[in-house]
């Protein structure tokens, strides 16, 4: 299964963190720091895989991709295929790109909820459920529509609902 999805910037600041086996927040920060320590050491022209036994326990690997100012990191165990995970990062990033129209770090910073919504459509409880970004976007739009329509009635503060309009 996929153990964790971490998006962080090249300074090591986490932007999206999701662990599929529960870790307390302090532990999460510690793990993110170790991951950053490993990734920041790596040159650009090297492979995208890192054996993560020392950080996440035996049998785990992580795969990462470096886009502009961001690292996208997926941590997984032996039940996943390495190259498929690499593809999945691509799917995720493409989905973000389509959702935010040329995604940049700021989009991710200010769309905490939407990021989780998107991610949860692709990976569900550590299992890959959807690999088509079109389907993911469709599902997310439906949820947003539902929330918007009901928030119009219940007068949810606009500052909250506005975030889903981005």
């Amino acid at each position, binding site marked *: 299964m996929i153990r964790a999805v971490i998006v962080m910037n090249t300074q090591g600041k986490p932007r999206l963190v999701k662990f599929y086996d*529960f870790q307390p*927040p302090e532990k999460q920060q510690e793990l993110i720091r170790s991951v950053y320590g490993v990734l920041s050491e790596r040159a650009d022209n090297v492979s995208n895989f890192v054996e993560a036994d020392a950080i996440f326990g035996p049998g785990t690997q992580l795969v990462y991709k470096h886009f502009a100012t961001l690292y996208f990191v997926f941590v997984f165990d*032996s039940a996943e295929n390495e190259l498929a995970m690499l593809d999945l990062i691509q799917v995720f990033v493409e989905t973000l790109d389509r959702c935010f129209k040329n995604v940049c770090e700021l989009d991710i910073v200010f769309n905490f909820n939407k990021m989780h919504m998107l991610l949860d459509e692709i990976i569900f409880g550590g299992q890959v459920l959807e690999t088509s970004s079109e389907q993911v976007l469709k599902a997310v739009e439906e949820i947003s529509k539902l929330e918007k329509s009901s928030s119009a009635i219940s007068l949810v503060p606009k500052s909250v609902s506005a975030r889903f309009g981005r």
Partner: protein
Amino acid sequence: MAGGSSSSSSSFSTAPAPSLVDSLFQRSLDDLIKALRSQPAGAEPSLLSRAVAEIRREIRSPDPDTKAVALQKLTYLSSLHGLDASWAAFHALELLPSPSPLHKRLAYVAASLSFHPSTTDVLPLSTHQLRKDLSPSSPPPFSSLALHLLSLSASPDLALHLAPDLLPLLSPRSSPSSPLRPKAAAAALRTLSVCPDVAPLLFKPLVDCLSSPDLRVVSAAVGAFAELASSGDPTPYLPLAPEFYRVLAESGSNWILIKLLKIFTRLAPLEPRLAARLVDPLCDLLRRSSAQSLVFECVRTVFSGLPDHDRAVRLAVDKVREFLASADDPNLRYLGLRALSMLGPRHSWAVEESREAVIRSLADPDPNIRREALHLIMVMVFDSNVVEISVLLVNYAMKSDPIFANELLDAVLTTCRRNVYELIVDFDWYVSLLGEMARNPHCTRGEEIERQIVDIGLRVRDARPELVRVARGLLIDPALLGNPFLCRILSAAAWVSGEYVEFSRNPLELVEALLQPRTSLLPPLVRAVYIQAVFKVLAFCFSTYIDQLEISQLSSLGNSTTGGASSIVESNTAAAASCIADGIAGMESTDGIATVGPLSENDEVEVHGRARNLLGLIHMLREILTWKTEEQGFIKDNRIGEIVNLLQSMFSEELGPVSVNAQNRVPVPEGLVLEENLADLAWTLTEDDTAPSMSISFSLRSHQHGKTKDAAASSVRSASLLAEHRKRHGLYYLPTEKDETESNDYPRANDPLLPASQGDVPEDLVKLTKQSLIPRKVKHTKPRPVVIKLDEGDGVSTFPSTTVKESKDDLLSGAIHDALLGEGKPSSSQKRYSDKSSRGRVKDIADTGESVSQSKENLESGNREHRSSGSKSKHRGHGKERHRSPQKNEEKEEKNHRNSARSSHHHERHKHRPRGEALLNVAPRAPVIQHFLL
């Protein structure tokens, strides 16, 4: 914030009065993020604590909007800033039933990120709400949220209670292409793995998902099975193999195929016929597929699942070579190497074929690839090629970067040490290799090298002369003394040269090396070893000297030839004579430091004490010098001669390795009560408790002569000693002009080498290994020396078996096994129905077998607490295997039956059994079944 102010006014109308202030001034998540982004560096902690205080106030608000925003902010801070959110678990729970989809979502997101199955005590309170949201009547997005929470934070209790609610979502009836069904499958996986008891309920619907027309459902189900099969015992899923095989044949999705291959990788080793049937589709995929992920998965399945099928292995190896050759994609090169290491030594020809690529990878810019290549090479080490490979790696370690250099050394050290040096034939070579490793400028593996030097000294008698030679080389080099990583090696070298001084060509040189001025750089414990070594060397020298005197006196009458053999002794006498002056001079400085630096008392005491011993010895031995001058009065003090001989015989007593279990084998003498309470003896201590050790050490102080020199004087003297030492061993010194300018500094031992030859490193490497990695017969020029090996507790250590997880997996697989056997079978394949009836009958008849497994099940659930002892659970494991095997037989047999003729029943089956047994090798238990069947 325009949005913020307008929102507060809009919530004004709905919010009750008390929350007015809160709502009015509440910061939204965006406001919080902006504040965090605009704060100056270092102000974050105070900002965060203010934000949390704010959230704590807002979250108690009766207004759901305020509460939701507060919860959202907290979730954000907890997720990305690592703040604790467990205190708000109840507030998240409060929002779960909210009718607003947004609030509900925020609450579920908060819960899924912060609820922990075992530490969140309010988790059981969510059961009712989850059930409500899971019900088919609630909107799909709500169910989706509930499933999500369930798949992340299900505790066993929650899983047990909610498993029935998953059923409608899992079934195809609800809606044919519901987006919820794959999610329900993923949630069912989690439920199954935390609570195996629900297997009878959920297993069948999950199997049904495999035959869904919706690919996403199939994908989720296959993923769930892949997870189950790879995390535990795959045996229970063997009956599903035909189903998986069908999906494999029908499905075109790479994602599904990859997961299926994961399952088959686990199943193929259990069932040879399955492996045989997989060869064709796998070869097909390997040839046709353009998706590298799928090709790699095929390679993995072939290498770890069906290594006996040469056709498939051949094809897969070719694919791996393509991977290795892909110059522009380090990922493929890396995975190619990983694939090769799955193959194992039996298929070493595959590594041999890509030898060049593997060796070249040692110089890859990617550390992953280098490490993998190293790993691969080390797997290929045999006693015939260990010399070549080790030399290659140790040489390469000189050129590579510090981290990898140490990995290389590590690999060589651990491989050669394996199983009490079973690979090493030529110990002289290995010992000198150890010496070379110590000279690697990056070497930080001092402890391991120390251990091996001493260990080989103890175990391999024939290696001692070479060991002493190597040790001399290390000790005499002043440049090594400054490297803190090497002091352990030097300590071992000092010990070896003291212990086996009889093999030394020139003990005097040894004493000089051991007492050289720069030894002050060593940590105290190592210095203590040095001093002790000097003590041993001196004792040896003088004992030889005295022997020599005796001989010469005996032969002085005849003045006969002393012969070539005694020339060594001759040199020893010379050594002994000059040892004294040198020794004393050296000792004074040593001792000076030992007394001056009382900082680390414990260690210093060790140095101090040994230095005293040594001084005492030298003082006594001084007398001998006077004998020489007097020449005739050498009988004068035979006492000293005796003492020296005594000391020498004391040290020449050989130390041997001791088995870790040796103590156990010592019988307890009769009359010795080990459990006796020694507290009763306390009174004897209080009576005459003095400080004996102290008094002795102080009485020695009277021998002290000229040691209370001030630091300046001693430093002047040590500098002059250093100059003296250098003059003698110019070999190790810097060029003179540099020597002049910074006289007290040697090149640092771990100065990095110039990276001059980096460019042609791969070529060098490949050139170096014209030798093959494949083992081949080598004529050993000399026989392997005896290596002392103790019968037990040596080399191979027994690891405590991992029990806890396994037992859980066993539970699950047991439950699934029962689910498969009990509830009949996956309904998707119609053809099985004919079998079902006969199987049911078999089960009724084979009632005893079932009851055995039942009782086993009970026993297990009862014993859950007693899992801790490894041997116990292992024991049970065996028992279980035995219980299960009849059932397994049934299974296999049945499949066999199905494959051949599915319409007929009993007789037909009977006829087929012998063949099935022959194929399956399950003969031992077969007779028992026969009885049940009849």
